[in-house]
């Protein structure tokens, strides 16, 4: 009985290790910083988006779509917060070349994802899944701005050359379509999801300034020191105003 328990624990342990290895980035040894973005106060009501003139998109919704400037999760956390290492990496640190492109999909007249990160030089694959005309305007300041159209279902690749937090994206044909991309020289970033949590793994030991950015509520920073393979938390709370 005990043997079975030990095998089970071992199996469970190995299984857990496998999960830990997946995380946000390629399995690396290193420390992890996690946390939850809390939201206090009354969540603002997001206005409905009038997609009546774009039936291709409107038809993809069962309930009327709403603006997504502020997405407060049912558990009182804030989604779409971009969390990243602002400083603290050793001067010698050099990110591995990105393996795969990041997909930015225009679907149902919305950007998916709404907020995301990308490495300098990594390909952003802009996909038009709607098959109707969109344009993508990237209003970079440090990065050269671009404005391209996709009149039909197609994919266009773009890259960014300079770190910049954040580059606004917009479609001018559909004025509600807005997105944000954080361009970084390293892969240590995450975006809070439907449970308000974020996780940055594979960090070399050091003391890091972590910044949490939200499109409406601004930025907050925290300092976290990590070593080895430990996991530390950083807490952020944004208040309604």
């Amino acid at each position: 009985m005990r043997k079975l328990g030990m095998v089970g624990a071992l199996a469970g342990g190995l299984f857990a290790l496998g999960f830990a290895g997946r995380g946000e980035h390629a399995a690396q040894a290193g420390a992890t910083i996690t946390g939850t973005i809390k939201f206090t106060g009354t969540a603002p009501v997001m206005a409905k988006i009038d997609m009546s003139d774009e039936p291709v998109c409107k038809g993809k919704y069962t309930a009327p779509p709403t603006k997504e400037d502020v997405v407060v999760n049912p558990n009182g956390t804030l989604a779409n917060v971009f969390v990243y290492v602002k400083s603290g990496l050793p001067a010698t640190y050099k990110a591995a070349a990105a393996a795969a492109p990041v997909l930015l999909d225009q679907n149902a007249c919305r950007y998916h994802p709404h907020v995301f990160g990308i490495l300098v030089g990594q390909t952003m694959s802009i996909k038009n899944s709607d098959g109707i005309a969109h344009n993508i305007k990237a209003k970079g300041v440090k990065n050269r701005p671009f404005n391209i159209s996709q009149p039909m279902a197609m994919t266009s690749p773009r890259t960014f050359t300079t770190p910049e937090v954040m580059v606004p994206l917009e479609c001018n044909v559909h004025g509600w379509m807005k997105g944000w991309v954080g361009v970084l020289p390293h892969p240590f970033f995450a975006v809070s999801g439907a449970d308000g949590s974020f996780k940055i793994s594979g960090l070399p030991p050091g003391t890091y300034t972590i910044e949490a950015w939200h499109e409406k509520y601004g930025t907050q920073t925290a300092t976290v020191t990590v070593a080895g393979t430990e996991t530390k938390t950083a807490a952020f709370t944004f208040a309604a105003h």
Partner: protein
Amino acid sequence: MRWWLPVQASSFAPEIDGLFTAILIITGLAFFLVEGSMIWFLIKYRARPGRKATYTHGNVKVEYVWTAFPAVVVIALGLTSNHYWKQIKGRDSVPPNSYPIKVHAKQFEWLFTYPGPDGKLGTDDDITEVRNKLHVPVNRPIVLEEESEDVIHSVFVPAFRLKQDAVPGMHIRAWFIATRPGEYDLGCAELCGMGHYKMHAKVTVQSQAEFDAWLAKAAQGDIE
């Protein structure tokens, strides 16, 4: 495919079409006269052995005639045109008590703001930023209060014969009376960038009751 001007859906469409037809008749006559004569000359006066051309430098009297005649025609055309121009676009042409609708033109959408129950624009009960949908009650003077966020656009409703550029930095009014219920197209008639071809709005002309019902729903954010 229609070979003529679009269906007439506004009060000044028949006037404009009338002027168009008058010009067509005048220019058509001129066309047939000139081209016809030329073809006749080409046949009648083609070179043949033994023929010589008539040696003449012209005829002053005929010059006076064919100067005066076109001059009279174009001046008459000008005066007639100006009469309608003043009525449609003149500084005091907007009918009093016109129902105002704000047109906010931007790359690449038309955002319409309707006055709320108080009938005035710029107040709290306005129904703001209805995208690409212009609803108007039939047989009632409407004035579009045009503005642009970025570059020059142009409001063009062919069925109304209505066109007016929306210029950033300017507030321009364009009025019309829709006379025929139905759905019409509104396009942008001034190159405004890569999405110029996508600036398409639908114009719905409906009875006052239907319009009120639509507006009430739109005020709730329920736009069809």
